[in-house]
């Protein structure tokens, strides 16, 4: 019995099922186009994409972590540490740009390694480990920067993120490349398959010859590595290295994106397309609130509503489709 050719409707059904956030995004975008003045404009869309580009990078990182059944609450603080690191190295110490970036990425990897080791080897729940390391990282960032920001970064450093190539901003381009790489990694490589298996059933995965210990640690490293990239790009974007950049709010925004994207907090499930559109959904909402001139507090309430709606949608979708 070979698998029969899938019907078109079946294909649609499967797509919606796997990528619920695309549907949520479209619904929200259509509503916004109708009701929000100035929303439906090419320029506005480009703004949204620009705003989403950096969080998407971090969100893909946390998506991997969520797929293991873990969580990284230190994410936002890692962002701050990497921001101040790159700022200090580029401007304060005056190291070559490539070396500064290299060291910053190493800092990201180191943070991830420590988180991963604590989760995997010391076997402390990820929630607690990363809550703890998060505060430590925040403290370190404050100490090395003496609590102050570093403004006006060198132009050749900033060029990495603000140049236009083929009409596309390099930040967006870098984000896009990362999406493609992560898509391959998650959906077309044995790494993604192993990760899913590990997230669903760690015991069975290990006994099927998956090196779960290594896998688990590497996931935290990839996450923090991506966060370091996001930190560099964000530092360039705001032209200011800040130890307080990111923080808890950022962590939750990124996790929210992944959750809207269908990633499961219980592990096993997560997709690149889902997470990308999860972040885009949040950014569309933010954009609408801006256009409507509503206060930031209202925005937060709205964000809460969208999370709840996304989860309800997820449930309904799973039951009906």
């Amino acid at each position, binding site marked *: *019995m*070979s*698998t029969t050719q899938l019907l078109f409707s079946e294909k649609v059904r499967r797509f919606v099922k796997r990528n619920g956030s695309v549907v949520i995004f479209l619904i929200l975008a259509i509503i916004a186009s109708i009701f929000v003045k100035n929303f439906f404009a090419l320029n506005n869309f480009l703004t949204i994409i620009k705003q989403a580009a950096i969080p998407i990078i971090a969100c893909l990182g946390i998506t991997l972590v969520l797929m293991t059944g873990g969580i990284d609450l230190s994410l936002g603080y890692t962002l701050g540490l990497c921001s101040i690191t790159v700022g200090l190295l580029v401007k304060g110490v005056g190291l070559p740009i490539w070396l500064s970036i290299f060291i910053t990425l190493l800092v990201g990897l180191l943070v991830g390694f420590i988180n991963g080791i604590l989760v995997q080897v010391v076997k402390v729940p990820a929630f607690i480990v990363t809550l703890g390391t998060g505060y430590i990282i925040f403290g370190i960032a404050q100490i090395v920067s003496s609590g102050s920001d570093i403004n006006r970064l060198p132009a050749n450093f900033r060029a990495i993120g603000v140049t236009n190539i083929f009409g596309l901003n390099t930040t967006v381009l870098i984000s896009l490349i990362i999406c493609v790489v992560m898509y*391959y990694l998650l959906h*077309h*490589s*044995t*790494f993604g*398959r*192993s990760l*899913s*298996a590990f997230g*669903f*059933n760690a*015991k*069975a*995965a*290990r*006994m*099927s*010859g*998956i*090196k779960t210990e290594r896998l688990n640690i590497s996931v935290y490293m990839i996450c923090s590595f991506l966060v370091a990239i996001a930190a560099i790009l964000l530092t360039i974007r705001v032209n200011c290295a800040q130890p307080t950049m990111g923080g808890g709010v950022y962590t939750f925004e990124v996790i929210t994106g992944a959750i809207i994207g269908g990633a499961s907090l219980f592990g*096993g499930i997560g997709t690149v397309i889902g997470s990308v559109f999860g972040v885009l959904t949040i950014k569309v909402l933010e954009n609408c609130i801006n256009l409507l001139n509503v206060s930031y507090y209202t925005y937060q309430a709205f964000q809460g509503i969208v999370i709840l709606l996304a989860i309800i949608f997820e449930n309904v979708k*799973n*039951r*009906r*489709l």
Partner: protein
Amino acid sequence: MKKTILEMNAITKFIFDEHGQPLRGTTVKILEDVHFDVKEAEVHVLVGENGAGKSTLMKIIGGIIPADEGEMLLDGEVITFAGPRESLAHGIGFIHQELNLCLNLDVAQNIFLGRERQKKLFIDKASMYTEAREMLLRLGFDIDPKTMVRDLSTAQQQIVEIVKVLSYDCRIIIMDEPTASLTKSEIDKLFAIIHDLRRNGISIIYISHRFEELKEIGDRITVLRDGRYIGTVDIEDFDYDKIISMMVGRKLGAMFQSSHQVQDEVVLEVKGLRISRNTEPINLYVRSGEVVGLSGLVGAGRTELGKSIFGSRTYYGGEILYMGEEIGGLHPSNLIEKGVIYLSEDRKLEGLVLDMSLKDNITMASLKRMYPKTKIDFKREEVVAQESIDKLNIVANSVEQICNTLSGGNQQKVVVAKWLLTNPKLLILDEPTRGIDVNAKSEIYKIIDQLASQGVAILMISSELPEIIGMSDRIYVMKRGAIAAELTDKREFIQEKILSHTL
């Protein structure tokens, strides 16, 4: 002529996806056009192999899952249940095979769960305990209603479950293999209860694998096979062979085959391994092309030994030699590469990733070998998985089907398929046929024999003596974490003899 109270016509249940939604338009169905009825005050026995659809049919009656097609009539009126509570409200009680008690509550609290007796605002504990005690005594059981359920034996827990269901004044009670964990005297008591209930006009639907029980308590027997209704027989017409042939549908060939030849090369040698600090050291060996049975009681240390060899457990000293090379403490991943595999006794926890597809599970242990460059070739993967499905006769809709929608036997075959794909040279099989039906068993025996004739060394842990006797070339018997006996002469392969070593 007794009145028919429950009638089910043309019930069909499709296989479903991970969210419980029916996959229509597939050729594989869990139940197809099944008829079933229950008369007043009768014990209606339901038999069939594992995966025949007995439990599914009962879940439909119990309101746990809906039927996709067909109708259910209660007292001649069409009825559907939205959930177990509705079914219970209509007087249908369900005693599950896996008990549904809260271990952290006491007996009375479990019996009255969700409808606690109240005195004004407070729970009336005193009257709950008295009532529970009375109910238990009425059935002839002297269990203190204040005992925590956790502290009861499985049999006693079963009794509590029965009391709980009885206390709902049910007209129909479903019992899914109630005697599986009971002792002889407890079974006698249960049967007395069942006779009592029937005398009081209550109907029982009774699922059992034990034929000797059927004659004792059954009024009618319905046989299901592969999700289909085969027929209903009155107890007066009960004939053992007839029921078997209805269940199996074809004559079983010789269950155990032996076409393999033991060779000289020693593949696995365990020297002085201690599975815990206080146990005697274990010495054993398995040769190429040899099936070695590892017998013993549950808890004798067989699984611990298997897992120690497979790098999934700490052991206390000793050597594990595979083809003369020390493999102790290696990661399963390295062992699989070398050709050593361990099939776990617990397929749901350690054997399969239930939430993933057949294809994903079948290739899981071979990812590194199939895709050394880590890029997955989806087409090739599908072909490989499909080949396994065909080779092992796995009944499934497609290679994309999620494993938790498969029956136990098919799940086990998926695990076997996964391990076969790794080209193993040493197989440690831990209860390879646990919880699967006769047909699947005989197929797995065939595979074991085939592998052995290809020169694979096999260490088979099993609690089923016929299986150990039928398959093994040599038998080790374990007791208290150590090897108690080694039987090399096939004339010694007698149940009583093996048992005497285990005790």
